[in-house]
């Protein structure tokens, strides 16, 4: 069955993560970025700056690494597979919540996209070193919450949450 929505909660974080997603409190502050279609030169800025912001908060190095990798994979996907979009990172004292919205064309089947090895990347994307079909699985591996909404012909919405401990 084709689903237009995907939810994942890391089991060990599920209670506090669900509470967070239900309440969505006001962040301490946010950072926002826009991403251009196929702009592989500037993509990577969001993940680097978000990582730096959390580093300043004293967040542990293993968490910084997870945030950087998950955010980088998601920003590359907007660059590579969509017509561009934007990112908002909501910074809290116990977690970071990052939201990616793009201008389509959406995914045919999110569950299929989540499968390791599935990719629709074209020649140009593959030449840049992407297209293994491992980005979304990497995001899931590093995130405590992953939520995706997408369907063919529509915008893709992806949000992730990572707790600092």
């Amino acid at each position: 069955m084709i689903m237009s929505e995907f939810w994942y909660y890391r089991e060990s974080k599920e209670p506090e993560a669900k509470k967070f997603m239900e309440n969505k409190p006001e962040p301490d502050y946010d950072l926002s970025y826009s991403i251009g279609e196929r702009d592989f030169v500037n993509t990577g800025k969001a993940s680097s700056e978000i990582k730096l912001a959390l580093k300043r908060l004293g967040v542990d190095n293993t968490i910084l690494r997870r945030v950087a990798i998950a955010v980088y994979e998601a920003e590359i996907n907007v660059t590579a597979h969509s017509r561009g979009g934007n990112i908002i990172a909501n910074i809290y004292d116990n977690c970071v919540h990052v939201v990616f919205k793009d201008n389509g064309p959406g995914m045919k089947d999110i569950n299929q996209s989540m499968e390791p090895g599935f990719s629709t990347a074209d020649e140009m994307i593959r030449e840049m070193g992407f297209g293994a079909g491992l980005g979304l699985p990497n995001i899931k591996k590093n995130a405590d919450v992953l939520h995706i909404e997408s369907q063919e012909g529509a915008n893709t919405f992806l949000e992730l949450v990572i707790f600092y401990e």
Partner: protein
Amino acid sequence: MKLKKLLENIEATVLSQKDNIDSIEIKGGYVSDLLSDVLGNAKKGDVWMTIMKHLNVIAVASHTEVSAIIFAKNIVPEKTIIEKAEENGICLISSSLSTFELAGILFALLNSN
């Protein structure tokens, strides 16, 4: 193990972070040209051996915290990429050997200690 020890055993040119080369430690290695594979599997302190030389390798090296990138088969990335690596504290090395040879030498050195 010191990166320096590996460099003594391969034909290599240091492209960036020349001043810090003596202090760089390595714990392992990873060979791949697929960036998401590297993002998912390379460990902090690894040497990443590849023939991929696009700009994105710098962000991948930075996020995975690998100790160095070694480009095989005499591959040298563009000057702007080397500058970006310098800025971000990423050590880039170019070697005439293939990734197969590089990995074999690194594996033997790490396991002889």
